[in-house]
């Protein structure tokens, strides 16, 4: 792909992936009520960020790599991972993508270029730079996509890595999904740039790196901005920091509680903590998934019926994923001691 705007097929591919992410995660969320106890620990949803994920990964080519955080369901789905294996992982089953050892926070699918995730904020950013060093040495024009949140830019790892990536001109694109929150802290409560009314992309200035802010709810805008960054990286001209502004439509994650307490998704922090219902409802109105569907229908790239059919197909796919995962057995306990060492 290049800097040309995506053609119709690509635009429909974008909608398909966005729907798949949304629907997959709706099934994750519903699992807490439909099948209590089946999901353990902490899950984090990408709802609201689908356009950003898909717009960015529309530039993914075989040989590229993607690294991300605990909020990691969207990327492998877009890259082609099997949603059944993903759901089975989230359910801790033997057929899980990671054999039930990793869980929701640690999805990995090397076969599809999804190299790894870390549950520690900021920790995955240097991993991406390391993979980019490998790509730089291979000299095949491959790039690495590094996804992380706005909060992660407050970790030293972020700055240390940006400096090195810029200095070494590593082929990596840093995509900061700025969803305005770190759990229950707003960006301007924890970030001096935000508090001063500046975009977070300004952080790139400390590292002689281009920094761009983009509307992450618009897949075309993300496609364009990330496309330029990817081209720059493939050409050996170094990394870019892309601040993709999104709004997370669910709470940070399901509630955190010890065993016995049923897990569920609480209301979004904007409402539950800050009482800012209007903010949340505005975000809902801007929900990128129906919006992009609307754009495609309006532009005649998709009929309403075609869109409905796509939606139904995706729903069915994700229902199959749930059934597959539910039917998958627990791993053998012997598996618990495997894979500590290669």
């Amino acid at each position, binding site marked *: 792909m290049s800097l040309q705007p995506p053609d119709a097929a690509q635009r429909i591919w974008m909608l398909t992936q966005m729907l798949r992410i949304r629907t997959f995660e709706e099934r994750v969320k519903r699992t807490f009520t439909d099948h209590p106890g089946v999901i353990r620990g902490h899950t984090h949803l990408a709802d609201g960020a689908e356009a950003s994920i898909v717009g960015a990964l529309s530039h993914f080519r075989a040989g590229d790599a993607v690294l991300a955080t605990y909020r990691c369901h969207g990327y492998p789905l877009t890259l082609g991972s099997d949603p059944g294996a993903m759901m089975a*992982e989230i359910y801790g089953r033997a057929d899980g993508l990671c054999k039930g*050892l990793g869980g929701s926070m640690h999805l990995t699918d090397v076969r599809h270029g999804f190299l790894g995730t870390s549950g520690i904020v900021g920790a995955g950013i240097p991993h991406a730079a390391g993979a980019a060093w490998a790509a730089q040495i291979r000299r095949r024009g491959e790039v690495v996509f590094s996804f992380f949140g706005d*909060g992660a830019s407050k970790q030293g790892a972020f700055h240390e890595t940006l400096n090195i990536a810029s200095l070494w001109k590593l082929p990596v694109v840093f995509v900061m999904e700025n969803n305005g929150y770190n759990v229950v802290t707003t960006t301007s409560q924890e970030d001096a740039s935000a508090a001063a009314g500046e975009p977070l992309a300004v952080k790139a200035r400390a590292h002689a790196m281009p920094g761009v802010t983009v509307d992450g709810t618009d897949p075309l805008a993300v496609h364009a901005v990330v496309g330029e960054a990817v081209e720059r990286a493939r050409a050996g001209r170094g990394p870019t920091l892309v601040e993709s502004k999104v709004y997370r439509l669910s709470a940070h994650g399901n509630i955190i*509680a*010890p065993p016995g307490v049923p897990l569920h998704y609480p209301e979004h922090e904007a409402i539950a903590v*800050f009482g800012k219902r209007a903010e949340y409802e505005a975000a809902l109105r801007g929900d990128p998934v129906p919006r992009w569907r609307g754009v495609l229908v309006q532009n005649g790239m998709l009929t309403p019926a075609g869109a409905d059919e796509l939606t139904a197909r995706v729903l069915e796919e994700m229902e199959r994923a749930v059934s597959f995962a539910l039917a998958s057995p*627990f*791993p053998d*306990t012997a598996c*618990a001691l495997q894979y500590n060492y290669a």
Partner: protein
Amino acid sequence: MAQMPYIAAIDAGIHQEMRRDPAVLYFGQNLATTENHEFLAAYGADRVRVTPISETAEIGIAVGAAMAGLRPVVELYMAEFMLVAMDQVINEAPRMRYMSGGQVKVPLVLKAGYGFACGWAGQHTGSLAALFMGVPGLKVAVPATAADAKGLMATAIRDDNPVVFLHHYLLTLEQGEVPEGEYLVPFGKAEVRRRGSDVTLVATGWMVSRALAAAEQLAAEGIEAEVIDPRTVAPLDLETLLTSVDKTGRVVLVDQAPRHASVSALIAADIAEHRFKALRAPIVQVTAADTTVPYSEPLEAHVIPDTARIAAAVRQALR
């Protein structure tokens, strides 16, 4: 006495000290982000602040504030998050007083949950006390009950040294009787949770309840286990442990960490050196399997010490 969950008891300990001493600060991520936050409302924005996700700066700021006369309590949530700032925890906070020849003191509390073995998988379930236990200058508290949670937190805040306060996440909602009013639990005083004369069972945190459950099972078989909870592992109340060993001659240590990352190995070595004559059986350790903690429930359960394994180890020690 008031009945309250462990987590509320920790808060009660912080409140007790914040009310008493205006030098006490409380800060960390994702707290006090609205004005009706309990601590913020009570003590104001000078003393209660939300921080960015910047553990190195958070803990480093605590060190500096402590050197300048304040008493910071840093909310870190999960113990693993300290790893990004480990230099501040083990090479700054506990060294500053020493290297200055006693000119400064560094009273601060690093409050962190640990051992959250309920599906939090490889990076969020660790039991890290042993990482801190051997660092001169540092103290380490590991409360197992609500009362200790309050009393050890208060003592930690009043202590003039850096303290790592490790509360067990699986105990969060455990109810317990907690003394009202000013309450302090001394550091370096183990608690005998159950009296017994056949074997000394040592456990901390969540493992205390499993050790007690095993002791009950064993009692039905006529085996009386003495269950000891050190409560602080630095300082370690070796005396109480050794006194018990003098009586029982047998020791089983339980730990949620893998063998060579465990507090129990460090205690076992001390007992082996100091009570060789009293021992009538090998010192047995019941630790987690040597593995990263798996996500899937049956696997997670498989790798962490349970009542059956503890009871079996006791029987082995008695054979």
